[in-house]
């Protein structure tokens, strides 16, 4: 089991959702985050105050998957998130010790595998 964390551009979030759907990855969560990853900073001016905006809006996907789904998930995040410009984001895959589905008490592989209704 792995936790796949993908940080992407907000404007690519819809493409990522579509790609995850095509890869049949059904369970994930996403949140809005701010970050910095080497992209060019934006300079903005508010009346006399000029500032360099060091942080960019990003969207963070978190997907807990069984081992067989790791490559598919990473592939979907790459496919949906890539524009080719600096600032497309990063993907981190980290080991996952334990998972529980709250409704049923299913654990581990059973908890990260979608149930068919």
């Amino acid at each position: 089991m792995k936790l796949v964390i993908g940080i992407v551009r907000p404007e690519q979030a819809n493409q990522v959702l579509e790609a995850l759907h095509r890869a049949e990855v059904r369970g994930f969560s996403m949140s809005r985050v701010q970050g910095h990853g080497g992209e060019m900073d934006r300079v903005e001016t508010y009346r006399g105050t000029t500032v360099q905006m060091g942080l960019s809006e990003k969207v963070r996907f978190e997907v807990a998957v069984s081992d067989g789904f790791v490559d598919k998930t990473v592939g979907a995040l790459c496919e949906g998130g890539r524009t080719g410009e600096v600032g497309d984001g990063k993907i981190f895959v980290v080991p996952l010790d334990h998972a529980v589905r709250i409704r049923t008490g299913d654990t581990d592989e059973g908890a990260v595998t979608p149930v068919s209704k």
Partner: protein
Amino acid sequence: MSGVDTGDTAWMLIATALVLLMTPALGLFYAGLVRSKNTLNTFMMSIAAIAVATVTWAAVGYSLAFDGDGALIGGLGNAFLSGVDFAPREGTTIPELVFFAFQATFCIITTALISGAVVERMRFGPFLVFSALWSVLVYAVLAHWAFGGGWLISGGTLDFAGGVPVEMGSGFSALAAALVVGARKDYGRQALLPHNAVYVLLGAGLLWFGWFGFNGGSGFSTGDPSVLAFTNTLLCPAATLVVWFALDLVRGRKVTAIGAATAIIVGCVLITPAGGFVSPGWAMLLGALGAIPSYGIIVWRTRTRVDETLDVLAAHGTAGFIGILFIGFFAQETWNGVSDGLFYGNAEQLLDQVFAALAAPAYAFVMTFILLKAIGAVMPLRASDREEAMGMDVVQHGEEAYVTGEGAILITPESGIEAELPVADPT
């Protein structure tokens, strides 16, 4: 000054300010309807119209619209405000300076209205150029036809407050603008939703407030036509709201807030041409019936490839068209002192209204189409896909509507904008 009525002038000064408020209100209404990354750019297009159209109106627009009674266009006798002073405007009891300012606010809001068709992708520079040219070549011409002594008004067409130049002028120009500029890159593929429905409702409410000056001032006095138009501006949109609620309930089982805001605009547009010509009862019928075509076109348009983004055609073009024709049926001389419509035995009035309902859309559409094609040949009309994805606020204005300030580094005058700043190396 002899011939000037102080009461009329006092009301027209206030009415002018009310109409000017409508343009920032429109900016708020439009800003709520777009995505948050385009909030400022959308609002700024309305502010830009105040800037540009006021200057063009003072330079030549007012003169072309209101100097003389040429069939197609006015003269240049009042160019650069020549001869516009404290003497009463011919046919009114208010100083021509007030008349000029009142008419200027109409030109401004009409120019701003068209921005609704091109928000979220048109570049700001070309929009400024377009505003300057459109306010003269399209608005001033249509205003001359309907208000200034041109062929429509001299032929008997009734248009109380601007169904021809303002509503049909903006609505059909918006359709042409949407076709020339083209759809947003994600249109039809992703849900592009309004980001703040409260702005939309507040904007619509302020527009309605301003519209009392728009319609109530179009009699240029405190006399009967103004009083009738003022009260009809309350009655007609209320009827539109009720019918819109019903249509929403039938279609989606829920009454929607953005639907209600749209209904307010549609109702105000419907009564704009007819305000001083129909009875309060007919005004309410106009509001009720007129809701249906605009509602239908909004539902239908979103299923097409035409990204006329904020539905200027449905809200203004269509409702203005219906309002102009309605006069031809239900105008009542006992109320307006001018003319009856078909329903009261005067079929000729309907014919006069039909001329306006055909000529204004055709002129507005064709001229706007040519104008934008010409501007597009000189400079790119729209932002790149990459810029569109980032949002027009940052790209066009270097500002954001909802900035947090977290992680913002102050650029001091000493270090300057060019100074080396600590940026991680992408390689």
